[in-house]
């Protein structure tokens, strides 16, 4: 009897002990499928394993290049036997032990479009795992996720903070480990390759989009107050920053200040900062010249009512400016123009909108696919990256399907030449034709650093909160805060 009691006590103790640690997590793959937010992609069920490359060849026989064929090969260890991967440019050195390709991201909106296109060519199950609610959150939460040991093959990183991850070998592996080299990106827009390259010149990130930006404006308001009929005339009126300011003044006079030129400092900053083309950090010293330059401009725009400095970028208020016809235009990147994006759903619902290049060639954000060092679905991962970052045919399909500006000159030039794209929220205008020139013209600043994102955020917050003070005081405040945040800098 007492033995029974003792055994029961022991069992209970063990049970309590083991359940106490249940939240500690483990390295099993099944913890990923159990997590939330990945159900949508799961219906991209496993394609018939053995016939995967046949299926791909049938569907895309005309447009599949050798690389794609090879990568779509079945996922049995093909390092040795198949000659197709060798033909695709490099050997895959990462393992191929798992049959689920997991992509970590913060929003599935791009990926779900990709999955729709990818389904016919995939050989194994592909799913995504959300980590963080937006890009900023993801930048901090990825580090924990990637270290947690949960299954991750590829992850999506944003322009502002990709350097933190690609310059850390414990977080990311070179694309050459998947047999992909810089040579595969001859048709890509050059700046995307530069950002995807780490400090040692190793290619670690590949982007499927070139996030070129333009200036979208309400053509009805332009006609009413500025007498502008065509996009060309409008472009002439905002072709430089001087012209932009002059037009803003003209608009202010015509409307008695009721309509602003653009809405927020955030958009203005994004376009203007590209022109400054200076590094934020020089060695370990913070370069405040960018901040001083933009602060002077922002104060002038705010004082004259060309923008509303209190409006938070992307807020409801920001959207309402466009909806209520209180602003002439927005600085919009390619991903603001697609179906279901800002222009379509909120900002551009009233009036007749058009896009032009605006005063400045700039890019805004953009996402890169990076490889985790723990990638264990190498063949499928390589195939996925090639499909959306190297293959002109699938990238064209993706651009037309999603409205996103694909990072491939051949694909985009073909779409523009064919005239196959028309954007309903821009009155049937082909935004790609406008943005293609922008994308070609984007030049990367010489030195970008891993502190940039934090410095930019700090600067814009400081600027917004202190816009009434004079330029020197704002710059001084920004520098103090930046130094307090970053002990590495001086």
């Amino acid at each position: 009897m007492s033995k029974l009691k003792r055994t029961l006590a022991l069992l209970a103790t063990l049970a309590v002990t083991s359940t106490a640690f249940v939240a500690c997590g483990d390295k099993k793959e099944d913890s990923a499928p159990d997590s939330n937010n990945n159900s949508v992609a799961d219906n991209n069920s496993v394609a018939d394993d053995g016939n995967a490359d046949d299926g791909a060849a049938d569907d895309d026989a005309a447009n599949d290049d050798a690389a794609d064929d090879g990568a779509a090969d079945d996922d049995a260890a093909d390092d040795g036997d198949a000659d197709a991967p060798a033909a695709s440019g490099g050997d895959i050195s990462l393992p191929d032990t798992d049959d689920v390709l997991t992509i970590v991201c913060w929003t599935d909106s791009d990926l779900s479009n990709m999955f729709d296109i990818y389904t016919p060519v995939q050989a194994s199950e592909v799913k995504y795992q959300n980590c963080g609610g937006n890009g900023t959150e993801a930048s901090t939460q990825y580090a924990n996720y990637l270290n947690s040991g949960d299954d991750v093959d590829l992850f999506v990183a944003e322009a502002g903070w990709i350097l933190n991850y690609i310059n850390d070998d414990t977080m990311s592996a070179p694309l050459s480990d998947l047999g992909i080299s810089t040579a595969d990106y001859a048709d890509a827009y050059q700046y995307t390759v530069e950002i995807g390259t780490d400090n040692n010149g190793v290619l670690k990130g590949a982007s499927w989009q070139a996030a070129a930006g333009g200036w979208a404006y309400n053509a009805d308001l332009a006609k009413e107050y500025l007498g502008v009929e065509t996009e060309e005339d409008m472009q002439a009126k905002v072709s430089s920053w001087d012209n932009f300011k002059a037009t803003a003044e003209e608009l202010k006079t015509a409307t008695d200040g009721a309509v602003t030129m653009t809405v927020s400092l955030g958009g203005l900053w994004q376009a203007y900062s590209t022109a400054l083309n200076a590094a934020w950090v020089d060695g370990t010293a913070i370069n405040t010249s960018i901040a001083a330059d933009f602060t002077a401009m922002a104060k002038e725009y705010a004082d004259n009512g060309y923008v509303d400095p209190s409006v938070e970028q992307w807020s409801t208020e920001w959207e309402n400016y466009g909806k209520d016809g209180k602003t002439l235009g927005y600085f919009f990147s390619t991903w603001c123009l697609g179906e279901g994006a800002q222009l379509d759903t909120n900002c551009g619902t009233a009036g007749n909108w058009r896009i032009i290049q605006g005063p400045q060639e700039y890019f805004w954000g953009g996402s890169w696919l990076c490889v985790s060092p723990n990638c264990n679905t190498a063949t499928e991962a390589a195939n996925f990256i090639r499909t959306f970052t190297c293959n002109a045919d699938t990238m064209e399909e993706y651009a037309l399907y999603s409205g996103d500006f694909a990072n491939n000159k051949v694909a985009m030039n073909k779409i523009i030449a064919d005239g196959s794209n028309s954007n309903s929220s821009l009155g049937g205008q082909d935004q790609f034709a406008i943005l293609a020139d922008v994308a070609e013209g984007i030049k990367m600043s010489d030195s970008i650093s891993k502190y940039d994102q934090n410095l930019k955020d700090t600067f814009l917050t400081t600027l917004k909160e202190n816009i009434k003070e004079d330029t020197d005081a704002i710059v001084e405040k920004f520098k103090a805060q930046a130094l307090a945040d970053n002990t590495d800098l001086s």
Partner: protein
Amino acid sequence: MASAAQSRIKSISYAKYGYMFIAPFFLVYCFFQIWPLIYTFILSFKGNQSNNEAFVGLDNYTTILFGQGMAAGAEATRQEFLQALGNTFILWFGNFIPQILLSLLLAVWFTDAKVKLPGKGFFKIVMYMPNIITAASVAALYVSLFGDSEYYFVNSLIANMGGDPVKFVTDPTISKGMVMFIQTWLWFGNTMIMLMSGIMGISPSLFEAADIDGANSTQQFFTITLPLLQPIMVYTLVTSMIGGLQMFDLPYLYHNGSNFSKNLETVAVYIYYNFNKGTVEQANYGYAGAASIIIFAITAVLGSITFYMNRDKDEIAKKKQRKRAEKQQKAKMKQGGGLTI
């Protein structure tokens, strides 16, 4: 035989099963509570950002408290921390004082036998209700009601009446006032219930006697209720102080856009921000650790002072008297004993 069995029964100790049952808790506690606490101390002596492995002694403390350290932004760090500390105290005082006054008033009304308020239960529930809503929902609620522009409810009313929009969220002073108000609104029900239980613990015969003697309710309040409520008041003060110094959720959540508001940055927000900004190479673990230890020290000191000030003086005086009497007794005994023997 019997004796052998008896001795065996005696030798069975059930204590070890008890230990076995509580062992899991202590294992988990050590692992997830004690060790992180110790590790916070260790971190506070280590560097920040890319220097986070190195032992830097008291550098983080001197930087945060005196603006003297090896980082170029030492002075700015000190100012930021002091600002956060100042905000913490302002926000705590600003919600504790109205909260305790309001709760006390309501508690007295609800417990007063003469007032006979109808629907007491209903009011108690309604007033306690805000406390069960999560701070995240509350912040979302208030931000969407009190947003800065005329697109939000309160400002649209103001605009309709011809006023300019009030910056409820971004103005440094008004936003602090809003957070104080929300905190008061959230917590006065809880404090009220606590004080009511304290008042109901006071013997009714005291109030009856006072009534018969002709004391009015103000006199009763100041001479009976308040003095006898002191232990509960001290408890409320201490818990509120600990909670107030660690105030995080509303100051962190009450903002527009994606960044928390610097005007509302409390020490807890400062710690979280420095700990959690980006990858390991970007975070300031040292500052976060040092700030945690400093706020811990402040809490400990303030807590001790509160207890010291509110200790039962009569009891202590009595104790002293008793001791003195004992001593005298002993001395007498010795003396007397010496004499008699």
